């Protein structure tokens, strides 16, 4: 089985903080990896590095065998945790933009997803509610037939129905020749989708492994393991 992501001893230092410290992680082909941890643990930085938006300080990062750059951007579909679209663009125009620059963009799937999410192509991004913007952005990201999907908090701002629609789209579009890394605060709702999980704390990987394996060995759900790892009670998000 090929490895889509290979990270070795990755460190990212800023002037005043160290965002990532000696992170080693592998994502095999066809796997969904859950990147878990509280805010500030380094999840977003790690994902931005994979997306080629942040440059590592030291260590190696390989996406499909090459370091992040122009070539990997064509293979990595990244969903940032903030709205990255122009407010005066319409949903349809955003789709055309993606289609223009990303060879792997599937216009037909985009239209299908818009229908499922009940979005209209003519609506301007600026006029959409937060949840609808999220759904629009997810539709864009999932319409690319990428090698690696990197999703930063894809479920934030979604009501339970939208969440299950997204999860369903996730499973429906699951392919054995691609991988996914996603971070989420809603561990309990999403943990069944993870093949592997990695817990980050203060920029370090404190625990990682196969999700089912962890369940078996610890006799606990991933959410409960999360609480053990970070040592405080997280209220379950509804």
């Amino acid at each position: 089985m090929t490895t889509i992501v290979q990270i070795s001893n990755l460190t990212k230092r800023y002037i005043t903080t160290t965002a990532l410290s000696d992170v080693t992680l592998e994502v095999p082909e066809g796997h969904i990896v859950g990147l878990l941890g509280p805010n500030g643990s380094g999840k977003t930085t790690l994902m931005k590095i994979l997306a080629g938006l942040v440059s590592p300080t030291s260590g190696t990062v390989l996406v499909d065998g090459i370091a992040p750059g122009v070539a990997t951007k064509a293979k990595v579909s990244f969903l940032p945790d903030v709205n990255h679209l122009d407010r005066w663009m319409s949903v349809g125009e955003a789709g055309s933009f993606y289609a223009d620059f990303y060879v792997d963009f599937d216009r037909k799937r985009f239209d299908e997803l818009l229908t499922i999410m009940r979005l209209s192509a003519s609506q301007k991004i600026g006029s959409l509610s937060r949840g609808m913007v999220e759904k629009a952005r997810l539709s864009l990201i999932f319409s690319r037939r990428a090698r690696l999907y990197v999703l930063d908090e894809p479920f934030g701002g979604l009501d339970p129905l939208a969440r299950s629609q997204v999860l369903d789209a996730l499973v429906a579009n699951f392919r054995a020749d691609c991988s996914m890394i996603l971070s989420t605060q809603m561990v309990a709702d999403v943990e069944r989708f993870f093949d592997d999980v990695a817990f980050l704390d203060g920029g370090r990987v404190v625990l990682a492994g196969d999700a089912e394996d962890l369940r078996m060995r610890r006799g606990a759900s991933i959410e409960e393991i999360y609480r053990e790892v970070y040592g405080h009670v997280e209220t379950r998000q509804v």
Partner: protein
Amino acid sequence: MWKLVRYELRGRRLLYTIGLIVMGALTLYQATRFIGMQENPAQPAPVSMGVPMTMAFFWVLFYAAMTVINIVTYTQDLYGDTGYLIFGLPLRGAEVLGSRIVLLVIDTLMTLLGGMTSVIVLACLAPGLAQQVRPWVAGFLLTGDYWVMCLGVLAVIVSFMAIMFFGVTFGKTLTNSKKHLGSVFSALVVIVVLWLSALLGALLETNLFEGVHLTLSPWKNMPFIGGTPAVPEQFPLVSPLMFVALGLLAFAATSWLMDRKLNL
């Protein structure tokens, strides 16, 4: 890169349309005024060249607005959320920056040609002035030196903006998301670079190119222009050339920073 240029242009459609209509309307207004004055036998004095030249001033204002929008949009992309879209595209830094430079060139050419058209049309219609100007216009338009000077001005403006883009990008790579600090840094960088280049240019002129006078005489076919401080007789070439070299350097450095040192 050209796809990006197309998108930027499309986004500017409204701005261009409004701007060109306004410029056209202003020129038309002044032109009709002049025609009116021509037909008035009581018109005493010929209109000075300065009057059509104010039209050029409006063109420059329009140009300045578009250029400011150009660099402000870039800064917003760099510091804001839309950067995740632009810098996440499978494009090299040189392409992203290049699209902005292409826009700048388009704006400059549009202003130059539009401005020239407005000024010449008005000069050829202004009472008194028209008689002075008309015989020289054809010759002027064929003055090679003039067009080379225009090219030189274009190159200098583009280089200047390249240095500004470098300043903004450099500020961002140094300070990351601390927006205001980055802008201050950028401004400082730009000022330092401009000051250094002025120094360097003066040094080169006096030390290396002494005796070698590389200048253009763009007004040689329009004898009544020039000689005034506002419109110098000769256009020096050494300083602009050196400035262009700096601009190229700034472009290369900015592209490199975008590819290797960006932290969005």
